[in-house]
């Protein structure tokens, strides 16, 4: 067990996958020589060579499109899109090509590619470098979407994503890169589609993912001081998502709050609420509530961004609301 940072866990998952499977390659903007804008791919070029670790020009459409073709040709490409906001420039390859190839070609092809991309605010990056667009990709049949919050999940979900025969969008919250944590010497692979009950509680089910997990846990601890026991579920996988784990929890708490950093409207929370009300209507003692970013672009000024990203006070207020 070693103390590492979140970015190191991602780096180790890449290094282990590259070591185990010669078909794994990594390419993207500044991932080789410079080691990635956040240092996530540092050292991989030196260890695995320029054939498998490649810097690309600033060409998101070609990066994602080439990943599709390379995956159809027997490689397992892991490509980086430097900020999730830049996914807009790669959308044809992801939505029309990668997501559909298996279905559209009658099952002849699988597209085992991974797109690693950072989302999220809290670092003053402004409207075009802070967005959480995971609901866009989760909406597309054929794509899988994961978003780890802890070091073991960062490692385990990336290994699972690289092993997966289908395209996976691996979302990294950039505020987590420097976060310290422990990682086993031989970390486990984490199955895509399985949530994790991080904190047990009987009063309210609170579902979240990514960096919001830590704000949710803080809120839960503070609520525990008031005698409110919140069950915290880290979703980990957004598509597919673990409806059984959430239903089990709601059957116990009968109340649901969902917290994410992405804007509330048409988001991941909306999907979970709609589906849970559909399959578990009789379990609810109160209407489910979402805590998410308001319907506006992410602002730049720290004073504005502090209000934009959900904070423990808003999370606590939502919990009190479903208990009222």
């Amino acid at each position: 067990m070693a103390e590492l940072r979140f970015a190191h866990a991602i780096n180790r998952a890449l290094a282990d996958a590259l070591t185990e499977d010669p078909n794994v390659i990594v390419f993207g903007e500044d991932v080789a020589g410079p080691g990635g804008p956040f240092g996530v791919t540092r050292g991989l070029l030196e260890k695995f060579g320029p054939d498998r670790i490649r810097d690309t020009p600033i060409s998101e459409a070609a990066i994602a499109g080439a990943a599709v073709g390379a995956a159809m040709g027997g490689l397992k490409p892991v490509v980086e899109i430097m900020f999730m906001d830049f996914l807009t420039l790669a959308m044809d390859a992801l939505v029309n090509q990668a997501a559909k190839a298996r279905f559209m070609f009658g099952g002849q092809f699988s597209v085992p590619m991974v797109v690693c991309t950072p989302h999220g605010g809290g670092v003053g990056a402004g409207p075009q470098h802070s967005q959480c667009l995971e609901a866009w990709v989760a909406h597309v049949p054929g794509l899988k979407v994961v978003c780890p919050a802890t070091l073991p999940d960062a490692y385990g979900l990336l290994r699972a994503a690289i092993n997966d025969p289908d395209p996976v969008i691996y979302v990294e919250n950039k505020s987590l890169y420097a976060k310290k944590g422990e990682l086993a010497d031989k970390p486990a692979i984490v199955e895509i589609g399985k949530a994790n009950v991080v904190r047990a509680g009987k009063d309210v089910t609170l579902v979240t993912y990514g960096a919001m997990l830590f704000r949710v846990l803080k809120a839960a601890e503070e609520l525990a001081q008031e005698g409110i026991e919140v069950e915290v579920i880290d979703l980990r996988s957004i598509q597919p998502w673990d409806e059984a784990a959430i239903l089990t929890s709601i059957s116990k708490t009968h109340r649901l709050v969902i917290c994410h950093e992405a804007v509330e409207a048409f988001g991941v929370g909306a999907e979970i609420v709609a589906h849970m009300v559909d399959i578990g209507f009789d379990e609810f003692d109160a209407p489910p509530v979402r805590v998410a970013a308001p319907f506006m672009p992410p602002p730049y000024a720290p004073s504005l961004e502090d209000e934009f990203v959900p904070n423990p006070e808003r999370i606590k207020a939502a919990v009190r609301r479903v208990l009222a």
Partner: protein
Amino acid sequence: MPQATASAKDSNLGRDDAIALYTVMQTIRQAELRLGTLFADGEVPGFIHLSVGQEAVPAGVTAALEPIDTVASNHRGHGHAIAKGLDLDRFVMEIMGKDGGYCRGRGGSMHVADAKIGMLGANGIVGAGLPIALGSALAHQVKKTGAVAVVFFGDGALAEGAMHETFNLAALWKLPLVMVCENNGWAEFSPTAREFVAKLGDLAHAFRIPASLIDGNDVMAVYNATRKHVAAARAGEGPQFIECKTQRVRGHFEGDQQKYRDPADIAAATKDDPMHKIEKDLADMQVSAAEIEKVKTDVAARVEKAITAGRNEPLPKFAEAFGDVYTPTARH
């Protein structure tokens, strides 16, 4: 930019090879014309884009490839699929939306693919085949397969950003990629001259990519140029670019009234039929009129057999399609 002036005389193709090329061209022509009538009769759903008048390009290019080479195609891609060697029955079944089709009736005309022979699919998005072929070429390079990737695209794709990104990245990484532009002068409903400023050769030159401008109606010229460029790509010299000047005889899609097009332009396109050139070459090689006629009637019989097979094939089942969005794994 060199203008290829190849003819049957300086080609290394023998008599039988030339007949084989002609057979491929006739198969594309006759299959597409019959698909056109099936579409008009309501037996083909959706919409289809025919490549009538452009058959020399896929026939000539594909004849210069090895079976391991991969091909990415576009929306006007029936010719590429047939020339690459797809089974005609399953090809027609797909376009008729039947279960036995290459894509089990889920893709249709714009998505015919055959993984077994390296046909990476037609594509409904203009220019999208370019980065996919780029990735295929990357796989060939990393896995050292010795194969090249080929992409067919129209002049309408020139204005797509993905094309410029692909040119640059392929040149940067010296990938075994052969890019074939079928320049038919039309970008959907507009003449390309009104939509794109640069000359194609200049564009290739800007990216330091060796290029040829070919008479795309001369199948021998297409074959010879492709052979040269494929050999260079296979030898590790990096990407290659071939512009084939040809013409679109039909509309952008079947049923397109082409009110935007001068009737004289359509007449000229029809007159520049690549079949005329190859038939003259065959005659020069002492292939008799009876032999040429036999190719046509044999092809017609194969096409009718494929259509009958398509008509007899059952429709796909919804539950099977619904269950095939993700690859089944041990966990599921």
